[in-house]
């Protein structure tokens, strides 16, 4: 399965991926319309920075043995036949056990606080391919066949 990988030597920490993620999942027709909507929609990718000019983006690794799936109390998280970890919002109760067990910090409460949200590689919006990858100006996020 194709997964997202990050190249931290190419990442400037511009956080455009976070905006692109929010935009892709917002249903809005222009990215600038996110203005004033922070808090109503949250990115499913997060950029980390440290003082030594290190920056990188993190989103769901779609682990083979996904601990979030096994730990989900509701059966809201599951793996597709291809290996993608998906969340069913209608089943999620917002207990956030997944947040407690994800070793990457790649699943988080959605803006309403009532369910978790995570990257589903833009298969759950109209983009069809990961928007963060498509618009990263530096090639710091790539979408490649997995099992490297």
């Amino acid at each position: 399965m194709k997964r997202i990988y990050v190249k931290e030597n190419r990442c400037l920490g511009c956080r455009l991926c976070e905006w692109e993620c929010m935009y892709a999942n917002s249903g809005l027709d222009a990215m600038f319309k996110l203005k004033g909507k922070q808090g109503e929609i949250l990115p499913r990718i997060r950029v980390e920075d440290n003082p030594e000019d290190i920056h990188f983006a993190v989103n769901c690794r779609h682990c083979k043995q996904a601990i979030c799936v096994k730990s989900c109390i509701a059966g809201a998280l599951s793996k597709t036949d291809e290996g993608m970890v998906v969340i069913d919002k209608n089943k999620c109760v917002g207990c956030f056990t997944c947040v407690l067990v994800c070793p990457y910090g790649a699943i988080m409460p959605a803006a309403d606080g009532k369910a978790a949200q995570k990257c589903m590689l833009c298969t759950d919006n109209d983009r069809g391919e990961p928007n963060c990858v498509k618009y990263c100006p530096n090639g710091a996020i790539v979408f490649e066949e997995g099992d490297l």
Partner: protein
Amino acid sequence: MKYVIIGNSVAATACIEGIRSVDKEGEITVVSAENRPAYGRPLISYIMLGRIAEQNADYRPKEFYEKNKVNVMLGQRAVKIDAGKKAVLLESGSEVFYDKLLISTGSRPFVPPMEGLDKVKDKFSFMTFDDMKSLSLALSEEKRVLVLGAGLIGLKCVEGIADKVKSVTVVDLAPRILSSVLDEGSSSIVQKFLEEKGVNFVLGDSVLSFYGANARLKSGKELPFDILVLAVGVRPEVSLLKEAGGEINRGAVVNERMCTSLPDIYAAGDCAEGYDKSAHANRVLAILPNAAFQGRCAGINMAGGDDVFDGGTPLNSLGFFELHIMTAGVYEGECSEDISGRNYKKLFVKEGKLVGFIIIGDIRNVGIYTALVREGTPLSQIDWRIMSKCPLLSAYSAKERDEKLNKGV
């Protein structure tokens, strides 16, 4: 090969998945005393809250049992295991024969003796879907509810009913709420928060007797009530295994392959013990992820595969209204704390490793801490100054980061 599973919740479901990862054809039968497909037991408070619809509570999709060729016997109680004959006797009188058997019967409520309890009309446990349904039917705006037990089950029940009744009072023998999960400081934050929501607590006290619609406490206090919820504690449901001659400690004694002391009988989930990496001992670690890990391990081994359950870690993710609490491991060693208002964070470091934490409020990325606890990562391998402030992957070395973010995991 004939597989029989007694009980039908998380461990049972994981066992089915474990079996099917090895054996696609063997005959699987699930004997379930409950009358509905598997659901995560902790879901009942969320259904009560209206957080999810009842029809979305199933742990697996509708087609799960058919797809995995599982014969589910709902509403059938197993009453005896004949280990010699390799048969499970059902309440109906019929027998189900097995080659490999899993006991995943979870736990049952523990009710201490209290005078007059048998005369209390509206009393409920809060363990199963049916418990939740019958309690729901009894609730109304003029009812006063008395909850015995300020543990996880009692307080999740409180959250579910608080806005549906006139008053809720919780009594617990312990001097603080959630005493098995939280330390004093964090417990008092949660207590204050729940009190602001209108919940009353009577702590360090217990019910001696019931008379009419009153509870008389040890302290002499009298509490009038209309509905009683019993959430004092739970005990592993191991009666079948015990009667069959299996070794029981507090829960079913199992080895790391989840085998009990009886041949071809396995146990998993809240009824079984298992290695607790944090306590360095075998004990019942009644948390849902453990049931999933143990159930899967048992299933793989039952089907002739080879898997070990190498231990679990205590973990709790709790929400009360909009307050979120996360804990892991043990609260031993050196503690660094960061407490302001309702945000509470304590990290416990022992012998150069993060062994536990309590976090209330900012729960972002907490799983990064959990991984340190679970894996026993020496803190000398990471930048603890960064990590102790905030759970971040940037505290790992460049090589570790590359492993985590650029390889298949």
